[in-house]
């Protein structure tokens, strides 16, 4: 048990941080509720419409969460073969719906209860809490009864369609980016505004009537209260039956098989296609073959890319910092101007993501196939080069274009912008080589649960921390040496924080940056040699 908890420590730390943030906003919610309660007590029913909007938004959000749960791993049965032969599908499906309702309950009940506790305090009576709790239960039950079976049915449709199955990673990534875009870019109010007529009108508008039914002078309509209670009582059994039907549709299915060309462009199974394109050849392999001489390098690169495409959850850790970029992009769209740090951000993230995506755990990523790799003729050179090639080939050009474009947009000359692009290529390549060395030194083989039964094998904490520090240092040094604004900004940021009364002039900062850059220039080939030797000498326990 202790070992299992330790294996999930990164995830547990994220949960702990999220919980702290969640707990931190509760006093704020309580204060807002208290103000509204005081307004109700003074005969002002104005906040009722805002309460309604908040609850209706929560209902829509909960439906979306239900869909995500159903279509994702929470719509799948653990030990399916055993479970579905022990209990009938209706029992299992009903249990799954109940489990998901229970799982989401704290996320809804805790903040809404905090808000209504505030209203109760402001209004001077505990009665508002009753309406708030009943309304929350109605929101949770009706939203999940609608969203969860829809998600499970969508899962069934995806499983039955080869086309949807193939597009699933792209669709999932699109939905994920859209979600975080809305949540972190400040677009949420705009979305709520657009949906406002629906959110304020019946039946969603009736949720406010139910929630405020026990709050004196809040103007709740008894007809709305009755209507929302009846609808909930109808939605729950209908949703449960729909969940059973959707689960049967999704679970008892022969999954669609891909019979046409596979992702990397290899030939299909037919004799004709095999004759047209020999089994040993692939379009991806041939393309990578133009960049690498040895077959082992091409093989490692091609497989790394194909696995990343087909199991994108492995990359979830590399994508997290992108959330911080969303406000920047939002600001750029809103103001029409690009912040001066954008080229450096592009380079920093490009180098970091290239390293984290694969090289930072190049041995651990092999999983059960590691013995196969170690007993073939592929040497460490091929493994390191192949892994680096797999991330540099797509990310270096992208980073170069982003950095160059951002540099041009921030007022740099075309020549300078091209230099930024070139620097982008260099830092992504250097970053992935450094990551390969750290990954070979500190491999990690334990996966962490990303969702339900899906696991990812992130880099070890030592490799992750060291690499992040190296990338920030490298990009900071490059910025200090090449960009006057960046130099001054870093100087202003660093000097007040120097310990022991140390001081640093701008010229001193430049010299320091030069030393760091020189060290890194030497470190990259050294890291390559180290990574190759580590892989060549690696033995299983």
């Amino acid at each position, binding site marked *: 048990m202790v070992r299992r908890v330790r294996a999930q420590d990164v995830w547990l730390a994220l949960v702990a941080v999220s919980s702290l943030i969640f707990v931190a906003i509760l006093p704020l919610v309580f204060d807002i509720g208290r103000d509204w309660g005081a307004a109700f007590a003074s005969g002002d029913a104005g906040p009722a419409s805002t309460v309604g909007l908040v609850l209706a938004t929560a209902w829509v959000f909960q439906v979306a969460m239900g869909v995500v749960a159903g279509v994702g791993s929470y719509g799948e049965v653990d030990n399916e073969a055993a479970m579905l032969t022990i209990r009938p599908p209706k029992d299992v499906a009903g249990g799954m719906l109940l489990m998901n309702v229970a799982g989401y309950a704290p996320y809804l009940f805790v903040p809404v209860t905090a808000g209504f506790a505030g209203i109760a305090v402001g209004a001077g009576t505990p009665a508002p809490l009753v309406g708030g709790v009943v309304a929350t239960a109605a929101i949770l039950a009706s939203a999940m009864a609608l969203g969860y079976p829809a998600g499970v049915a969508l899962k069934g449709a995806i499983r039955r369609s080869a086309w949807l199955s193939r597009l699933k990673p792209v669709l999932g990534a699109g939905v994920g980016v859209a979600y975080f875009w809305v949540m972190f870019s400040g677009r949420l109010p705009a979305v709520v505004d657009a949906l406002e007529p629906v959110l304020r009108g019946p039946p969603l508008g009736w949720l406010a009537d139910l929630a405020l039914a026990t709050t004196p002078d809040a103007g709740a309509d008894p007809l709305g209260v009755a209507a929302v209670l009846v609808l909930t009582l109808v939605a729950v059994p209908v949703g449960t039956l729909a969940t059973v039907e959707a689960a049967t549709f999704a679970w008892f299915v022969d999954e669609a098989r891909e019979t046409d060309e596979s992702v990397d462009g*290899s030939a*299909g199974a037919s004799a004709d296609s095999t004759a047209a394109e020999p089994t040993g*050849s692939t379009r991806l392999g041939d393309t990578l073959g133009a960049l690498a001489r040895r077959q082992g390098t091409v093989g*490692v690169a091609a497989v790394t890319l194909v696995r990343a495409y087909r199991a994108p959850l492995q990359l979830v850790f590399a994508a997290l910092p992108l959330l911080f970029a969303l406000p920047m992009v939002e600001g750029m769209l809103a103001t029409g101007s690009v912040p001066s740090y954008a080229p450096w951000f592009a380079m920093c993230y490009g180098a970091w993501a290239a390293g984290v995506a694969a090289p930072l755990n190049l041995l651990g990523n092999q999983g059960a*196939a590691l013995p196969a790799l170690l007993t*073939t*003729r592929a040497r460490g050179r091929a493994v390191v080069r192949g892994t680096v090639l797999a991330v540099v080939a797509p990310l270096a050009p992208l980073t170069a274009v982003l950095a160059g474009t951002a540099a041009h947009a921030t007022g740099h000359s075309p020549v300078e912008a091209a230099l930024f692009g070139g620097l982008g290529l260099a830092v992504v390549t250097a970053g992935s080589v450094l990551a390969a060395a750290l990954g070979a030194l500190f491999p990690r083989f334990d996966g962490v649960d990303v969702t339900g039964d899906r696991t990812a094998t992130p880099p070890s904490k030592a490799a992750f921390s060291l690499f992040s520090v190296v990338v920030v240092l490298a990009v900071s040094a490059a910025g200090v040496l090449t960009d006057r604004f960046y130099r001054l900004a870093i100087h202003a940021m660093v000097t007040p924080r120097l310990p022991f009364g140390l001081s640093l002039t701008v010229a001193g900062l430049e010299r320091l940056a030069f030393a760091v850059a020189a060290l890194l220039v030497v470190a990259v080939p050294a890291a390559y040699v180290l990574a190759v030797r580590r892989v060549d000498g690696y*033995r299983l*326990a």
Partner: protein
Amino acid sequence: MKDAAITATELTKRYDDEVAVADLSLSIPAGDVYGFLGPNGAGKTTTMRMLTGLTRPSAGSATVAGAAVDDRPALTERIGYLPADPPVFDELTGREHLRYVARLHELPPDESGERIDDLLARFDLADDADRRIGGYSTGMQKKVGVIAALLHDPEVVFLDEPTSGLDPRAARTMRDTIAAFADRDVTVFLSSHVLSVVDELADTVGVIDDGTLVAEGPPTDLKRRAHDGAETDLETAFLAITEDQDVPENPVEV
């Protein structure tokens, strides 16, 4: 007298204070099928890992097809290895995985393509070769692992439980393949709990118990020895040899 394809001298592996394999000495002639038996946790997999260069021995030495086990570049050109858990990527199709292994062996794509197609057909996997391995049964994954181990025509093949999870037809194909390899002077180091397979194929059987080689010899001799000269089957012999008893200082010669 054939040259030895596998030799081991006092090969030992310790994990802290625990001895997984103790002073194992072997001499397996080229072209032989060597059946390696032992109870769970006896040290079979550790031995195979040492002989394939995947684990460094704590003491002793070994060579496989003339290559020292600590000389990985020389060793990997000569050996093929199928671990008990098939070393495959779930995200790839069977054909893609084999193509990957072929590239790791630096086999030219056109040459490896023909060989992959041939082996896929031989193991009755051609129709499923373009499905993802994640959707394969254990037996199908094992077939992919076996084909991967044989792709580069190794001189010595290490097979850890090659027939477990295979259907009768596939198991027969596997046995025929192992026999065919032996006919071509490929040495097979075969670890299996399916004693009938070992009995049918092995020229010599070694029994390891608690990290120590406790018996070694041709299957017929082993069967006879276990019952004081009376012929019995290999299962009975195995049970008699590995029953709870003090491990002898030297392996029993039969």
